[in-house]
């Protein structure tokens, strides 16, 4: 029985809003810390849940299988990390929000991720298009607000507007796609669709493919697959940094869970599989190339991470395109986990550094190796893991993906993957170069880091390295 977890999260969010409104004198950071503790408790609670399909009927719209459970935890962890980031980032938010008293609006800033979290958790278990749509919109709409949260900051507003319009557009494609699938199968549940797929007449195949295509477009938008990735760099750059991190990890992960479930459902029909796999491979190749190449000339750290997030979507899509292989699911999930750890670590270092420097440029990292060795080391690990260097989770992620792809003989994708990995080394090492090769500017302000951030960074570094060598604990958990 796992419904309560989502409700718990939801209640926590509502409770926080209430406390925020009725006890305005409470320090908002305390609120956030409390929320972190509660989320941690919920996280612990999920370990007492057994993966079991709640309604195993063909119309089941909610599945608590191992995958779903894993992503619930994933959502909780990323929300916790987002809150840690948000606390670190709070001073910046305060600056860009008009308010009668200090800390106005911070309460919402800390609360919104919790609602998103609830949406993400539902999404993880959603097995019906209705459910998928609702959960997805819960996530997306709360993200609209978060992206545009700093309403005295033009970049944040612009990012919010772009995300809003493009997001709504993709929602339009999604529902229209659902329409056509429903029209051809008479079902909205994924299981139901799978069972009737064989009975769909040949004439309806095209319409069905049309629907699937529209859904792919929409999910492609969610996971930042090329050519639907155009919002990503702009929105990532403009959004408040914790939101960027959350967006790039949680939203993408949720997108991939849905994508995997949807693709799984349609792969039952060989005819569809023959169409779908090349299309996914096409998306994957395009995304790999676009994300990695366009990242090469970047000089803004947040934008670089945005392109990197596109690039990683490419590798994940390679995994999705290999779903025929039993290893693919595990590879994708592991990659997402790795992506969570390293991306959050990167943002965790980015926030204090850019707070100190007042900007997000890579050159703001100059000399960090001397100015803040610990933070620089954390960033080094994050970058190496993102680049896919062995002894980090990032490498294992790529390894599993490539293994799955080679099993399915996607050689073109694998070659593209290798070439783009080399590009990746270039742009990730640009950050390393800034930190270690370049001298610090004379007047560089000190990088102040809170103990919580420091602890979290150390924790993430440890996880990246330990899981990079010994991934067994995670692999045992995976479906």
């Amino acid at each position: 029985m796992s419904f309560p977890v989502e409700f718990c999260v939801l209640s926590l969010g509502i409770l926080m809003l209430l406390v925020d409104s009725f006890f305005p004198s409470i320090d908002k950071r305390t609120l956030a810390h409390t929320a972190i503790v509660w989320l941690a408790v919920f996280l612990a609670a999920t370990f007492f849940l057994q993966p079991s399909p709640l309604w195993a009927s063909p119309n089941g719209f909610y599945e608590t299988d191992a995958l779903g459970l894993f992503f619930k935890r994933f959502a909780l962890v990323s929300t916790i990390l987002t809150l840690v980031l948000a606390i670190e980032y709070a001073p910046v938010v305060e600056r860009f929000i008009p308010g009668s008293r200090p800390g106005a609006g911070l309460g919402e800033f800390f609360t919104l991720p919790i609602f998103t979290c609830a949406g993400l958790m539902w999404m993880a278990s959603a097995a019906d298009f209705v459910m998928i749509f609702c959960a997805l919109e819960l996530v997306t709409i709360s993200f609209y607000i978060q992206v545009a949260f700093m309403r005295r900051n033009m970049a944040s507003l612009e990012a919010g507007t772009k995300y809003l319009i493009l997001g709504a557009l993709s929602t339009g494609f999604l529902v229209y796609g659902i329409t056509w699938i429903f029209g051809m199968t008479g079902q909205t549940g994924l299981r139901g669709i799978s069972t009737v797929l064989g009975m769909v007449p040949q004439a309806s195949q095209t319409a069905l493919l049309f629907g699937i295509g529209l859904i792919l477009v929409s999910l492609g938008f969610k996971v930042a697959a090329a050519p639907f990735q155009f919002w990503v760099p702009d929105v990532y750059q403009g959004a408040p940094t914790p939101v960027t991190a959350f967006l790039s990890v949680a939203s993408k992960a949720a997108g991939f869970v849905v994508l995997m479930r949807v693709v799984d459902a349609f792969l039952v029909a060989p005819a569809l599989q023959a169409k779908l796999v090349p299309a996914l491979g096409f998306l994957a190749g395009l995304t790999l190339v676009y994300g990695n190449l366009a990242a090469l000339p970047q000089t803004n750290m947040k934008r670089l991470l945005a392109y990197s997030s596109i690039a990683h979507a490419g590798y994940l899509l390679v995994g999705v395109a290999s779903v025929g292989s039993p290893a693919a699911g595990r590879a994708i999930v592991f990659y997402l986990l790795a992506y969570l750890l390293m991306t959050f670590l990167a943002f965790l270092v980015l926030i204090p550094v850019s707070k100190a420097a007042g900007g997000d440029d890579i050159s703001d990292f100059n000399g960090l190796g001397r100015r803040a060795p610990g933070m620089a080391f954390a960033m080094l690990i994050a970058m190496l893991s993102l680049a896919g260097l062995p002894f980090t989770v990032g490498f294992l992620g790529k390894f599993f993906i490539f293994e799955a792809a080679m099993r399915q003989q996607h050689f073109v994708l694998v070659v593209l993957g290798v070439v783009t990995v080399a590009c990746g080394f270039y742009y990730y090492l640009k950050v390393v170069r800034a930190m270690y090769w370049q001298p610090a500017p004379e007047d560089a302000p000190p990088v102040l880091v809170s103990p919580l951030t420091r602890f979290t960074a150390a924790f993430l570094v440890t996880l990246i390295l330990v899981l990079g060598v010994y991934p067994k604990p995670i692999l045992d958990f995976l479906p």
Partner: protein
Amino acid sequence: MSAIPWIILFTPLAAAAVILFLGRFSKPLSAGLAIGSAAAVCVLSWWLFTRPDPTETIRFYWIDFGEALRIPIGVTIDHLSKVMLVVVTTIATLVFTYSVGYMKTEEGYWRYFAGLSLFLFSMLGIVLADNFVMMFIFWELVGLSSYILIGHYFKKDSAADAAKQAFIVNRIGDFGFMLGILLLWAATGTLVFSELTGRVAEFASNPVYLTVACVLVFCGTVGKSAQMPLHVWLPNSMEGPTPVSSLLHAATMVAAGVYMLARIFPILHAVPVALDVIAWVGGITCFAAALMATQQDDIKRILAYSTISQLGYMVLGVASATSADVPMFHLFTHAFFKCLLFLCAGSVIVGMHHEQNIWKMGALKNKMPFTFLAMVVGSLALSGCPLFSGYYSKDLIIGFAVVKYPFLGWLSVVTAGLTAFYTFRLIFVVFLGKPKDDHAKHAEESPLVMLVPLACLAVPAWVAGYGFVEKMFFHVTEPEHVPHILHPILLVLFAAGVLSAFALYRSAAKDPVSIPFFANRLYIDNLYSWIVRNIQDGGAMVLSWADRWIVDLLVVQVPSKLAWACGFVLRFLQIGNIQAYVFFFGAGAIGLLYFLIMK
């Protein structure tokens, strides 16, 4: 008993190692160790010479792969190696001793003696080797010691260049040598000389293969014994100290090539075509080097060309004689008289304060009477004057050559006349006439430590060709069917050479004859340096350029720059306008749908 050869072999190496570590602290220690080891080895060699050939020797496998490949390290003690041992160690002892006087004022004393000892070790290794790889090992090591010793005056550009050239030219010879070894081994499966001889017979049905192999092995000789076309390094090696020239580049090391041919004499004589090649190389070298010698001005270079010429005789002898003892006999006598000549030249050079141009000398007869006498003995032996050692050994080779290769034989006859001419040109210009330089006016006789070795060498240079010596060391059979006119012609040519030299050079102040073609060494050196500069270095420059601008460009720069440029362009799709994004989004959707539905 069977350990004696090993002791002989490794004593000089031990000496070299000790000198390397301790030599710099004491000059007498360096010299003492080197001379002591050489003398000890010399005594042991003579002792060994008096013993019958041992029936068993120690031999171990340096590398052992069973049937696939076995590289042994072992010694051969037979007549050939015993003679060579005696020659090498005796001359080495004398030259080592002489060096004490010659090098007294030079720096790098310990370096010099360490080099000499290392050389002795390597040379003995060649002599004792019982298989090709072991010989090759020491072959390279003598190259190294030669490099060290030629480069003794490393601050002089010419010496540094000469050392480098000597090593590299030798390596070119070794390239062929190794290839030849590989061919022989691939066919017979063995590297040991004694086993090879037997197996070659089985292989005689493949004459081309064997010929190629033997000619390639002969390349080693061409390099080491300075045969055409790889002779250029030897005259340049005269940049080294004179005792070095004497020991390495006249008496012993350069003879190693001939020694090696003598070692594989039975194999060579199974392949007539290879012998023809060897004969032609030897004959041409012998003649051409003599031509070059006639127009040189440097006392040591004249001797160097004469060495090349004499080595040519020996090689010709290998090809034409019926027994290896014939060329070995000449090697034997040549070792003594050429060593003597060089040491005399060294004495002159010391007397002249390191002036080597013969046109700055003159009238040294009275100032350096002892040296003069010794030098005359050496010259007579070299130019084949009857009753002197060279006469016997050289005429033997010429005899064989005339019978087997008439053209080359008669060429070598002419060469004999040339030899007399250039040798006595040297004597007359240096010792007669007027002093042409201040140094020549004030020259003094050398110290005793240098003169004693001269005396010790003058005796064998004189008598080494006599029958009793010959019987002791060799078993030479006279050639048959030699034209009766040969010996008179040789005598006439000898006399003509000496007399013409006397006529031309008795009191000449500068060279009355000028033949640029000979003086410039047939322009071979120029050709080589042109090749090295333009073809090798030029080609290397082109390749280097290509590496940077073509290979690197294609493999690294273009892909990386292209990737960057693509990224730069792709970035501009991200123009920031929402509606453009919507357009791309829609286009992408249409593309995806097309891909999904139509394909």
